[in-house]
């Protein structure tokens, strides 16, 4: 496997400018001769499909949802970062770059992160021009709030529905291209295979989720923008349909999977309440702007929150991290919550929660201001828990949320498979070992609106313009394999339901490869996962046929991939014998419980190459070179 990062030479601040100038351009009249496939229609996929359609390329866009507008980007609540410095509080492209790199615990590529910060401002301009109704102040200018891991106010937001508004913006641009005939949309369609011809990605095989029909689509290039894999934990903040299938199938075709163990556990989610639970609901991190996190100083304190006097409360984030306080980054906040709960100071009937308290800010700002800022979040919390957060503090607990790991990409956002590009959460590139809040929306839109339209030209100009065709035997073979696989699943006729097995896998992953990991636990997981996989192929129970709308079959296919993918995740976590960002190895911590990085051995991207089921994946390393920033100890004290 060849891992060439293709980072342009020259000073950090001019790399992207220079890259753009040196890029090969496709003649506008020739763009319509290129077909491009985009898989996924979230922020990254929709913005890419729309922008490429606008440029004149022929685009086919696929999504598993019934409409492009439903992709899970829509659920992002808090906001999107940009280095506008509208607040005059000392922000700059360089500061956003530095905060993001530091937030990622120095496990991402300098040049990629700098570019992300550089294009962040254009994203806000673009979205405003599309009619995205961002929050504004009384002078009519855009408002900002703060997010974890930053000491400036650089987050733009639209109430608690920023992801929705940004996605609807991208969806509107996409809709315009569909109406204009430049993009053809395939909803309720799932990608099953990337098809390689002479080593280049030349198309995909998909299943129509309504009819079960399996068909092929050919193109000059394939873009995967299918999001993350937090549902490997079964319970996560992701939508039920979120899955690793597209990315994992690409991995099985030779694309490297980078840093799969870098997963983010979000600190502010509603705690689990019962065994029937189907998902964990996130409460935006923006709540930490005005909410104070605390638990009782006493163990097993059964008093109601409001009966616990001030001097018996432990505002542990403010105590441990006085300068960032409640705005400490997500990984640190999550681990601190786990710590106090492990000490027996957790709140709620099951002790799996901490308080997020608005009492002081309601006193300071009034209930109306808090309602204006977070009203819909408070309402959602109340709907789920039947508790009133204006009166009693919220109970929150960490939950699997975002996955920094993903398919390896170079500076062009192309994987090591030529012609296969990966955007948004599905790639690994910008967030290192921990993503800062409000950076996912930024990255998804940066990749789709402002990076891929430039970088894809370099690939397209280097290959033949001949129209791709699905007549190639590779397509027929891939279709046949998929049909056989589906038949095999339907013919097992076992006793185990897909949900129950997924829950069991999720439990193993949460216990052994969740917020804290150790060698013993990871080895246990690596023993257990193949057993679960065997259970699947011997004993899974999926009713119905392929030729119909069959959601159990869809889910079974995705679970089968998770059951293989979980292994490289644990393998990666075991191999990375250090703590960094969201990857916390218990063996490597300071006496105060802070993560200890080992830069000498692990300042690299771990890229895994598929060797076959039941065979250990092969590890490749891309060394991280820091030309501009000297990786330091990440301190938020």
């Amino acid at each position, binding site marked *: 496997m060849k891992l060439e990062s293709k980072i342009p030479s020259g000073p950090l601040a001019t790399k992207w400018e220079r890259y753009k100038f040196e890029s090969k351009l496709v003649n506008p009249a020739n763009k319509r001769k290129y077909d491009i496939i985009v898989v996924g229609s979230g922020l990254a996929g929709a913005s890419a499909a729309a922008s490429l359609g606008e440029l004149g390329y022929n685009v086919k866009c696929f999504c598993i949802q019934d409409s492009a507008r439903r992709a899970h980007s829509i659920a992002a609540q808090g906001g999107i970062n940009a280095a506008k410095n509208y607040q005059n509080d000392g922000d700059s492209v360089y500061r956003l770059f530095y905060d993001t790199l530091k937030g990622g615990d120095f496990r991402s590529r300098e040049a990629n992160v700098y570019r992300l910060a550089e294009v962040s401002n254009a994203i806000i301009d673009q979205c405003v021009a*599309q009619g995205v109704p961002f929050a504004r102040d009384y002078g009519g200018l855009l408002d900002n709030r703060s997010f974890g891991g930053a000491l400036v106010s650089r987050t733009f937001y639209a109430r608690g529905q920023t992801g929705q508004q940004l996605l609807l913006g991208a969806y*509107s641009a996409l*809709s*315009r291209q569909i109406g204009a005939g430049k993009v053809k949309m395939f909803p309720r369609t799932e990608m099953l295979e990337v098809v390689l011809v002479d080593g280049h990605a030349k198309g995909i095989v998909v299943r129509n989720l309504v009819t079960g029909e399996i068909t092929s689509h050919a193109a000059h290039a394939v873009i995967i923008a299918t999001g993350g894999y937090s549902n490997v934990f079964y319970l996560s903040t992701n939508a039920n349909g979120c899955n690793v299938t597209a990315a994992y199938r690409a991995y099985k075709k030779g694309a490297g999977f980078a840093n799969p163990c870098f997963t983010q556990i979000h600190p502010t989610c509603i705690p689990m309440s019962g065994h*029937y639970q189907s998902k964990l609901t996130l409460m935006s991190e923006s709540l930490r702007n005005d909410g104070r996190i605390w638990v009782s100083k006493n163990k097993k304190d059964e008093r109601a929150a409001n009966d616990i006097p001030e001097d018996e409360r432990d505002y542990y984030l403010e105590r441990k991290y006085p300068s960032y306080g409640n705005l400490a980054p997500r990984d640190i906040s999550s681990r601190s919550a786990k710590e106090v709960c492990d000490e027996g100071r957790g709140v709620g009937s099951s002790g799996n929660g901490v308080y997020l308290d608005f009492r002081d800010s309601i006193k300071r700002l009034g209930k109306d201001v808090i309602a204006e800022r977070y009203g819909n979040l408070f309402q*959602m919390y109340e709907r*789920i828990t*039947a508790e009133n957060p204006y009166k009693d503090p919220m109970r929150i607990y960490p939950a699997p949320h975002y996955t920094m790991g993903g398919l390896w990409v170079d500076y062009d956002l192309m994987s090591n498979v030529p012609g296969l590009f990966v955007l948004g959460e599905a790639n690994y590139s910008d967030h290192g070992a921990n993503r800062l809040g409000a950076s996912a929306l930024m990255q998804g839109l940066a990749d789709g609106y402002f990076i891929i339209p430039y970088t894809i030209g370099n690939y397209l100009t280097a290959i033949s313009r001949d129209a791709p065709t699905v007549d190639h035997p590779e397509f027929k073979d891939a279709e046949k394999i998929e049909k056989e696989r589906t038949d095999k699943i339907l013919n097992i006729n076992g006793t185990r339901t897909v949900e129950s097995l997924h829950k069991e896998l999720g439990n193993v992953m949460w216990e052994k490869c969740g917020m804290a990991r150790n060698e013993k636990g990871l080895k246990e997981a690596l023993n257990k996962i193949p057993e679960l996989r065997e259970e699947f192929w011997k004993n899974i129970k999926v009713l119905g046929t392929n030729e119909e709308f069959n959601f159990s079959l869809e889910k079974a296919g995705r679970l089968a991939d998770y059951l293989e993918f979980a292994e490289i995740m644990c393998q990666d976590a075991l191999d990375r014998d250090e703590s960094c960002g969201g990857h916390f190895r218990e063996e490597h911590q300071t006496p105060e419980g802070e993560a200890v990085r080992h830069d000498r051995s692990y300042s690299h991207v771990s890229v895994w190459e598929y060797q076959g089921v039941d065979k250990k994946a092969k590890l490749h390393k891309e060394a991280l070179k820091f030309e501009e920033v000297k990786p330091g100890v990440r301190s938020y004290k």
Partner: protein
Amino acid sequence: MGRGSFIVDRIEIHDTLFTIHYPQIMNLTLYIWRQRNAKDKGKMVTYMADDISPDMSFLEMLDVVNERLIEDNEDPIAFDHDCREGICGTCSLIINGRAHGPEKGTTTCQLHMRHFKDGDEIYIEPFRSRAFAVIRDLVVDRSAFDRIMQTGGFITINTGSPADANALPIPKEDAEYAMDAAQCIGCGACVAQCKNASAMLFVAAKVSQFAHLPQGQPERMKRVRAMVKAMDDEGFGNCTNQYECEAACPKEISVNFIAKMNREFLVSGLK
């Protein structure tokens, strides 16, 4: 609905849960629409849902029913859902005659079983409309909404370098108005609840969002005409001012936007 008293009520229920330390369990009778595919005639089928916890969401209750069905070798009930936090607009269902069930401003996925009681009979049907064909059981095809959006639900601006975002101040109240309209999740409850199966609220929300923003002015007249035509072509009915759409809307989008769209449409005919 008196919000204050409502909250107190709910807290009491919850307190009971916590102090007694065992959940109240409900046994329910469900009447559910089953239809194998678009061609199948379909019928209501009765299911017993026993041991349902009040803390479950409505869809989690259906998950539990489905797990039991699969164990008994019966096809599980197909229903649309995804984010399960009330924002993606995928979930649907007519529950006891109401789109998204009895709770105001709540999607089905955010509806919790604590709003039902032991022994209740619950009727569950798909969103019905000529423009929303049934795909299977409770799953319907809402792609007509996408096609309407493709005719004008956008501002024509290519990705590029527009002016600085703050170059165009927009009064806070205008931005808030646009946001009120933009909250629509495109679930189709408005259509399902309307006796005429009208899509006016859905279309009006998008038309009003853009008509109220400076960015939306150049295409204002063209947009409303195109979207209204597309809505009619898809087979949605007309609005006869019953306001059922607003009552059913999980985002409580106001029917005032329909009035706004009607004005826009009228003006567009004069220009």
